[in-house]
């Protein structure tokens, strides 16, 4: 009789143990990793709204897991959490891909803007070099300083590109190009005023 009770107890316990659901640890980890990857690939910068949504999904998944964890073992059901983990992972991967695409677009845009700015500054400096030497150059001295400052600021764009801060690089390059065009125009006006001038390099 005693043996029968023990056997029934063991059977009951094993049924209970088998019936206890476990959280889908692998899926949860995979979802968390996917969100982390998206974040590391610039999702928060390039697709901020989509990334915030993914963070919301991740939080929802965690809440669902915590809710199930809080229940009596026999009543736990991680099906919804598993589903949320899968959705989060899929969304995070999509967002990561979108971020990479956007980043590539920004990189291309920044590189193009940088090239345009370089070309403008080069032509500005060429105009400065064309200016006559000697007294007639006086009117151009201030403009020359501006052109040199523009040349120096191109280095900042390169630094931003090196840091993969493409949006900032593009904005700065465009500003340099715009300013370079204005300075070139100023030089052309000054040169038109001065004319050919008479080169006369002397002490002053």
């Amino acid at each position: 009789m005693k043996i029968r009770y023990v056997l029934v107890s063991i059977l009951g316990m094993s049924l209970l143990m088998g019936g206890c659901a476990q959280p889908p640890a692998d899926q949860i980890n995979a979802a968390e990793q996917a969100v982390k990857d998206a974040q590391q690939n610039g999702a928060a910068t390039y697709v901020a709204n989509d990334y915030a949504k993914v963070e919301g999904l991740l939080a929802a998944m965690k809440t669902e897991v915590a809710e199930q964890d809080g229940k009596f073992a026999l009543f736990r059901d991680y099906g919804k959490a598993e589903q949320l983990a899968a959705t989060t992972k899929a969304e995070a991967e999509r967002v990561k891909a979108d971020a990479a695409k956007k980043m590539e677009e920004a990189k291309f845009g920044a590189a193009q803007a940088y090239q345009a700015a370089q070309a403008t500054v080069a032509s500005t400096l060429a105009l400065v070099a064309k200016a006559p030497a000697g007294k007639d150059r006086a009117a151009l001295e201030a403009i020359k300083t501006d052109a040199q400052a523009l040349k120096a600021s191109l280095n900042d764009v390169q630094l931003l590109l090196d840091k993969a801060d493409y949006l900032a690089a593009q904005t700065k390059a465009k500003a340099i190009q715009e300013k370079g065009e204005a300075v070139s125009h100023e030089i052309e006006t000054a040169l038109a005023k001065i004319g050919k001038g008479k080169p006369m390099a002397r002490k002053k």
Partner: protein
Amino acid sequence: MFHRIPHVAASLWCAGALTLSGSLAACVETVPPEMVEAIESLDRDLLQLQAGEMAPSEYAAFVHQWVTLRNRVEAEEDTIRWPWEPNDLEQALRDLQAEGAKAVARLTEQQEAERRAAARQLADVEERARAIATQVSAIDSRLILAEKPVETDLLLKRARAFYEQGRYEQSLQASDRASHHLTAQSALLQRELGRYASPDRIAQWQRMARETIEWSKKHRTSAIVISKAERSLTLYRSGQKLVSYPVRLGFNGINEKRYQGDGATPEGRYRIAGKRGRGQTQFYRALLLDYPNQDDRRRFLNDRKKGKIPALRDIGGQIEIHGVDNELMAQTLGCVMLENPQMAALFERVDNGTPVTIVGALLEHNSVERALVNLSTRRNEV
């Protein structure tokens, strides 16, 4: 009796059917579909307001709640309830809808406030930059600022671009940096040109001019006093003022001359060391000054010791009072330039050895002092 039984059964059946259909008609859906649509629409509004950027944690919380509730909505899609049955899902959705609507209103207001703040600050800083440029141009001090105006201009252009892209926070940051640059420009001008507002220095310049005039009186001969701030050359004969002419200076003329090529016009006591007539100068007529004098050489050597002079730079020379080669030239490389008819008149009235005193300013309230006061006022306003 036998005929009545089927009548009763039919009546009972009819009553049962009516009750059932009445009950079914009274049943309701768990969640009205229009409520789900309303929340979806709020989500779209939040995305349009860039909630993910402006309030990331708040938006993530909204999404979290929405995802959780939507799962419940899907799970309970086929469930029907009695109207009197409590419906916590509907209540939770109502709460979320209310929260979402509040967030949309708050973000709309926040975005508008940020836009207004960015626009106001940008306009203020742009206006301040224009005002500084005007003052700097009025006293020909652009070179003192070196590359700073370009850096400021680039920041303002970026602030404007960010504003136009709706990135108000970045616009505010860029215009704030531009504002700091402008403050630094004002400070630099105050430091470099502060002597024009110094009563002691002005008194010293006035004394130098007085002594030159006294010398002219004592020796019954000509003397020239040039004031850089007033942009004027005055000729004296026997201590009496004969004539005053407007002059143009070096491209960095307002500054103190330190070395060759700096574009500054020197300050000090000089003499005419040579007269160059027609065919001897590019500039119609020229009066060569004996720059550098002993004071200039002493100052140059001191500055060199202190590392204030760039390597390989000489002290310079060939400073002249001359006429105009090209009417459109506004500045010189450091000389003093007069219109040709006035140069001709001056040329005839002076000789080798005539003293020429060049000072910063003779008046306490001179053009540079006024520009510095204006800059300082604007800085205080900011």
